[in-house]
Every structure is written in structure tokens, then in C-alpha cells.
């Protein structure tokens, strides 16, 4: 069940250093939102603040609020562990658990939470998740094989299946295709277009053409002279890539940067 994600004046620190400032942005439910911008603009930092993964780094903290649906992820008494259970994340380099089989990787989320799903119910959950990740046909005959035997693109789809098995409301992807070849990249992009029917998808990408192909809405972030990242412009992808309002956006998209 997809929910909208609304960030209100979110700032993030690494120890004393401010990384992003007052980012306000609503990522619509059941749509794909892309975050683009040059290196160091804070887009990954912002993404990790959504599922409270930022604060895992020693000395890191967040200011502001982020609402998933009606719930404030940073509200008093919100358990970060529970937040992360409802928000799935896929990382830049595919990271399936190397000691586990394909089946066990997909099942690892619910098992880590002790949800008590077993036997046939778990079989069905694994199958459904792998189908949603467009990987089922390729692995259905070797579910017990080690996950590390898959190709890079397959491993990444496995990581997506693993996240989907938790039945999240939101899926975050941090440059999911940057370690993959073009065909695997296209497969992932096509997959995201299908996933958005059921989930809210937020993707960080340094490949702006990918954002143009995949996202409904695009946000452009930029770090100023003070090296603090801010959101410069946010809107429908078609508009951003054909007639952006802010000249900095246009400079970045047309490659006139630096």
C-alpha cells in the first residue's frame, strides 16, 4: 500500500558538519520520484534520512520531520527499527547475504523480524516477491542455490525482492543501477515503472537520463559555496527536462556545469 512521503525542512549533520539544509519535498504516493544533482549535493544523505539510516553513523543526526502517510518518522517514540521495516532500501552495489541461498535471502527480512511465517506461507511470499522483482522465471528452478552465483543485475533484482518481501509502503533506491551494465539497467528501470503501481518509489541517481526515463517527478539538489546541500527545484519530470525554471537546473541538465 503506497503512501506519500512528505519531508518538512529536513537538515542533516555528520557530527558538527551540516550536510543538507531545510529540504522540503513531497514525494507522491504510487509515483516515482528521482533525486538528481552533482556529487556531494546531499541526495544520498537525504534519502537515508527517510528510513532513518543516516543516524546509524556515529555522530550523525537529523533535524526536521518526515511524514510517511500521516506518521512522522521522527516523531517522539518512533522506533527506527520499525520505521526501517516499513521502508525498503536497495543500495548501489548489490548486497545479497552471501551465506544464504536465493530463497533465504528473500525470506531474511520477515525472519529477522521473527514474524513466524513458515512453510507454505513463506514459499508463497518468496515466490510473490521474486515475481514482483521480475526475477522468478530466472531462478525458480534453483531457489536453494547460493545468491552469490547470480549475475550483478540478477543480484540487484534479488535485493529488490528481499525488500519487497517486507511489504513496505515506500521503496528507496540509492543509485541502484550504477554498478550494472546497460541491459541490466534497462531491466531495473522497467521494473521500477511496474513497481510504482503498488509502492511509492524514491530513487537517487547520478544519471539524469535515467531520471528522465523513469521518474514522474524530479528534484534537483545542489550544494552551494558553503558545501551544504539544498533543494533547488522540484516538479514534473517532463517540465524539469524541457523547461526548468531555475537557471542552475538548466545548467546541470544541459551539462554546462563546472
Amino acid at each position, binding site marked *: 500500500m503506497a503512501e506519500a512521503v512528505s519531508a518538512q525542512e529536513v537538515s542533516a549533520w555528520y557530527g558538527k558538519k551540516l550536510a543538507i539544509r531545510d529540504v522540503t519535498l513531497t514525494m507522491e504516493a504510487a509515483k516515482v520520484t528521482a533525486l538528481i544533482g552533482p556529487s556531494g549535493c546531499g541526495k544520498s544523505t537525504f534519502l537515508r534520512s527517510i528510513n532513518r539510516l543516516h543516524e546509524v553513523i556515529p555522530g550523525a543526526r537529523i533535524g526536521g520531520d518526515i511524514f510517511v502517510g500521516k506518521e512522522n518518522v521522527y516523531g517522539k517514540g518512533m522506533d527506527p527499527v520499525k520505521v526501517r521495516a516499513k521502508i525498503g532500501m536497495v543500495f548501489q552495489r548489490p*548486497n545479497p547475504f552471501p*551465506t544464504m541461498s536465493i530463497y533465504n535471502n528473500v525470506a531474511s527480512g520477515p525472519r529477522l523480524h521473527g514474524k513466524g511465517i513458515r512453510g507454505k506461507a513463506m514459499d508463497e511470499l518468496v515466490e510473490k516477491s521474486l515475481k514482483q522483482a521480475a526475477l522468478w522465471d530466472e531462478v525458480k528452478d534453483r531457489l536453494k542455490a547460493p545468491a552469490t552465483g547470480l549475475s550483478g543485475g540478477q543480484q540487484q533484482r534479488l535485493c529488490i525482492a528481499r525488500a519487497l518481501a517486507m511489504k513496505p509502503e515506500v521503496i528507496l533506491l540509492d543509485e541502484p543501477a550504477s554498478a550494472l551494465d546497460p541491459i541490466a539497467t534497462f531491466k531495473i528501470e522497467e521494473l521500477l515503472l511496474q513497481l510504482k503501481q503498488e509502492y511509492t518509489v524514491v530513487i537517487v541517481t547520478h544519471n539524469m537520463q535515467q531520471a528522465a526515463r523513469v521518474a514522474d517527478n524530479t528534484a534537483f539538489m545542489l550544494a552551494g559555496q558553503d558545501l551544504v546541500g539544498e533543494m533547488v527545484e522540484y516538479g514534473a519530470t517532463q517540465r524539469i527536462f524541457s523547461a526548468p525554471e531555475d537557471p542552475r537546473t538548466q545548467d546541470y541538465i544541459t551539462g554546462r556545469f563546472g
Partner: protein
Amino acid sequence: MIADAGPRFGVRKLTDRVGTWASIVAVAIAIVPLIGLIGFVIQRGGAELSWHFLTTPAPASPDGGLAGGISTPIVGTLIIVGLTCVMGIPLGILSGIYLATSRGGRFTQGVRFACDVIAGLPSILAGILVGAFLLTYDRNQPSALAASVALTLLMFPTVTRATDAALSAIPPELREAALGLGATDAKTVFKVLIPTAASGIVTAIILGIARVAGETAPLLFTLGFLGYPTMNLNPFHGVMPALPGEIYVEISSPFSKDKALALGAAFVLFFIVMFLNLLARAMTYRLSQRTRVV
């Protein structure tokens, strides 16, 4: 142009050959003592091997010689090493987890330093320390437990360092993957990180066991070896026979039959240690094949 090698190329080739041969000679020199040792032990000790040898209790007096065997020392060694593992492995692993997952700071640095110091502790000091601390020094209250404690001191730093290194070598993405799924830190460590680091940890444990199985000095101050102990299964009290001690006693005896017994025992001990080392290698290879991270 490429075919024109020039004079410099010839010098380089020569230097390369000289270096290669120097390395081979150095390795040969290093291996010779090992080969000599293996040869000596196999030749002299292997002759003693027999089923009788392995199942008869150790002789109770000098020149009991070949009437006896080494069954009691073997059992004793097993008990002592077993106790050591029970104490050392959890201590080592938990310390290693702490070091790998802590956020740095003075205390962590202190723990690391202490671990390194203990790792370099001469085994005789370990024996004296534990012996004095547990009041067995006066040799009135020897116990296998005390011996195990001393051996634990020698074993656990290896396990700690290996656990720390193995956990630290895991790419951070794996930890992130587990956290991203909403696992708590504890579950992440025990259900994801430890299994991934398992090969390194198990190898270190095996090597640790191999080491303590053969340690003699700590046994001297905790078990005492001026007599000929009979079998004693009580670890808390009383002397217990053990292989290293048995070797020491029998080889010190002037009777040749006793010396022969000692060499047989040395062969068995050597064999155990070699076996454990090879086991560790095999495990490292096999597990590394299975758990290769992308």
C-alpha cells in the same frame, strides 16, 4: 622498436633470476628444520605406535616404560583443551564483536591494546600468573581448571583478533542491508555478520586449539609435573595427566624405554597439531568458496 631490448633489459633479467634463486634458497633453509623435525619424530616416535600404546594408561613410575601407554594423557589433554575452549571461545568471540562494532574511543583502544599484550605473553608467564592467582603455585592445589584458565589466556586473543578482523572485513553494505530491512543491531550481528565471518573465526579457533594443545609451561605451574599422575577426572582438584607434561617427564627419565614412550607421545601430539592446522586450511578454503561476497 619493441624488439630492440637494449642492455638494460639484460641486467634486469639477470637481477630477476638472482632474486628468484635467492628466495628459493631462503625458503629451503627455512623448511629444512621443519623437515628434519618431522623426519625425527616420525622415525623415532612412529615406531611406538600401536593400539596398545594408545589405550594403556601412562606408567606410574620411571622405567614403567613400554608397559604403559598414553591413554590417560590423551584423555587429560582432551579435558583440559575442552575446558579451555568452553572458556576461551565465547570470551574471544564476544570480545571480537565488541571491538568490531564499537564506535572507537579510549576504552576500546584500551581493550585492543590489552588484547595485543596478552597475545604476546610468554606462556610461562601465563602459567605463573594463573598459578599465583589461583593459589596453585605452591603446588598444593593443582587443578586442570587452573591449567585451562592459563591456556585460555593464551588462546582467546587469537580468537578475539580473528573475530575482530573478520567482522571488520565484511563490506559495510552487508550491515546496511540488514539494517535497511529493519534488523536490530544485535540481530544484525548474530544472524548476518557472524555467519558471514564464520570461516575466519572458525579457522582462528582451530589454530588456537592447535597452539594450546601443545603448551607445556602453563601446565607446569598449574598442574605440576614432578610425579607420575594417575587418571583423575576431576578438573577442579588434583593433578591431571596431559600430553605435553607426559613428554616432559618421560624424556627426562634416564631409562631408554621411558624416552621411547616420550617420543611416541611426541609423535601423537605432533600429529594432532598438524591435523588441526591442515583442517584449518581446508576449512578456510572451502568456506571462502561458499561465502565469497560480490
